[in-house]
């Protein structure tokens, strides 16, 4: 087996609040190989974004990473000093956010921002850095990249801005990209353009990608493997086809049957009842038990541990759905 680019083991991230300590990420373990796309799916408050931030070491007070390992090519990022982490971010690991304006500085031209990033990580002349920046813009499908370099972010459409952000992320050929809902705010045709560019570039470069989203349909089209998060824990993980066709966790099943296109027209959807629990008052047992149609006494009292149910799949559930075959 090829060594994974990123290997996360039992990651725990906590936040101190007035109401007590909240465990936003609770024992998350995952691996991403070169060229692989891992989709992390969850609803709001499931901890999917904080997982991404924790991998990058971007947790500020009152939060803290309370335990676990984050291995990038075998090196534990949690033991690295902050200065070394800073060198690593943007160079070996890049992050793409939902709102491109979170990444782009509104008062600086695109070229200033891109050249600055390149020169922070590579010892090249400003002229060479400009060339690299123009080339990166061209790669993500931005027409006339040299002219575009001289514009400000507000002069671009949302789709163009997101392309610039992706260009910046890809520019230094990182080993891993973490993308947090990067196409959620975009229109269908623009989303499709960006997904197509990402597919092409990642396959060519063997870059690992973690795609964090609430949208199972995008994951179905893009990812190789899927991890489903609920209340800070990964409840089920597996290859995309296997997991979506034969979900074992009742929550995964619920998410799938909530999608309007999952049932024939005119048939009723089968939504998950209730709503996501507050992390402050999580149930004692399985966090999904109060909403779960299969929950038993055990589920309300004990937390299921992650178990491998086949070579490629793992699951946290006492009463998994029967898997066909």
């Amino acid at each position, binding site marked *: 087996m090829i060594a994974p680019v990123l290997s996360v083991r039992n990651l725990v991230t906590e936040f101190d609040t007035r109401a007590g300590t909240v465990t936003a990420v609770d024992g998350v373990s995952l691996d991403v190989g070169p060229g692989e796309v891992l989709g992390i799916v969850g*609803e*709001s408050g499931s901890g999917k974004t904080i997982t991404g931030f924790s991998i990058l070491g971007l947790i500020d007070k009152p939060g803290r990473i309370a335990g676990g390992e984050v291995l990038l090519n075998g090196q534990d990022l949690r033991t690295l000093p902050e200065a070394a982490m800073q060198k690593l971010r943007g160079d070996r690991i890049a992050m793409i956010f939902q709102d491109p304006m979170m990444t782009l500085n509104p008062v600086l031209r695109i070229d200033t921002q891109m050249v600055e990033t390149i020169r922070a990580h590579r010892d090249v002349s400003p002229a060479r850095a400009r060339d690299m920046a123009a080339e990166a813009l061209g790669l993500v499908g931005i027409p006339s990249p040299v002219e575009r370099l001289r514009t400000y972010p507000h002069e671009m*459409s949302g*789709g*163009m801005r997101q392309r610039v952000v992706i260009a910046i992320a890809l520019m230094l050929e990182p080993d891993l990209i973490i993308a947090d809902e990067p196409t959620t705010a975009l*229109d*269908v*045709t*623009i*989303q*499709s*353009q960006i*997904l*197509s560019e990402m*597919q092409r570039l990642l396959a060519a470069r063997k870059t690992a990608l973690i795609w964090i989203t*609430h*949208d*199972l*349909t*995008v994951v*179905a*089209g*893009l990812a190789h493997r899927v991890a489903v998060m609920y209340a800070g824990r990964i409840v089920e993980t597996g290859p*995309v*086809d296997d997991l*979506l066709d034969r979900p074992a966790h009742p929550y995964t099943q*619920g*998410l*799938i*049957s*909530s*999608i*309007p*296109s*999952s*049932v024939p*027209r005119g048939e*009723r*959807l*089968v*939504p*998950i*009842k209730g*709503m*996501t629990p507050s992390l402050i008052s999580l149930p004692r047992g399985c966090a999904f038990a109060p909403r779960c149609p299969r929950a038993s006494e055990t589920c309300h009292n004990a937390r299921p541990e992650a178990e491998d149910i086949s070579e490629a799949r793992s699951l946290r559930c006492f009463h998994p759905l029967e898997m066909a075959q």
Partner: protein
Amino acid sequence: MTALLSLRALSQTYVSTPDLAERMANLAGAKYRELRVRAVNEVSFDVAEGEVVGLVGESGCGKSTLGRMVVGVETPSGGTLAWRGATLEEMTPEQRRQWELEVQMIFQDPFASLNPRMRVEQIIGEAPVVHGLIKRTERRDYVAELLGKVGLGADIMSRYPHQFSGGQRQRIGIARALALRPKLIVCDEAISALDVSIQAQVLNLFEDLRAEFGFAYLFISHDLGAVEHIADRVAIMYLGRLVEIGTADEVFENPRHPYTRALLAEAPRIDRRGQDFTPIEGEIPSPLDPPPGCAFHPRCARATQACKGAMPELRAGRDGRRTACILEHGEQP
């Protein structure tokens, strides 16, 4: 039977005239012109009683402007809007009041559409009291009944909006619309801001309410999956114009307009794995400066010289489906 709502060549043009400073600059030789945006451009369709019409389009296509005209928040700049056969101009004050009460709207953002200083009872119960549908003394019972209809308990009546989750707030917004006993509900991206599992709950609620009260919906959304699920008929908009309209089965199974085809081909679906995304090129043109002829031609793979010439009208093609594409009208080889 006359249609509940009937739109004929309905248009909305926004005009921005040069301000004083710009007019002075023009005297010195600057070239500030009047800017016109045709946000909605000659849209015609009907909504029958109890019918769900899905209105689909990308940002800036004018679908929300159209929805706001239908509820009467904006006055159309051209064309006619008729409610129960009476146009805006012909309406008597009584008919106008009926239209205003019978068409209600549910908004996208459940956080911005509820007054944060009002209690739930007031939010839902204010309008029916003001309009004389119920007496003030009946308000508590009336609101309690409505809350039951949308799946909330009567005990939440004295709470404020900030005490609720997004899904619960959206239910309160739905109860507020129901309170006026409407006939048509305009849902402008009403489920887009909700989590997936909550979206499904609200979609089911829409269907239950329709079965119980016989509402018609104008369901405005960019989410093709949701529209396919709920709509009887689907209208596709692009840059202010309708490009295709037909029954949901027709449009989703056999889209005709190249834009509809592209939208459907690119929409991610749960059963589409390892999708090879082959997007249409380019971005939506600015409505300030729309391309000549068919607005979609710069992005259309099938565009011919003729497409750049004349704006295609929405009319029936060879098989009776209404599209705005000359290639479908059979005028081209």
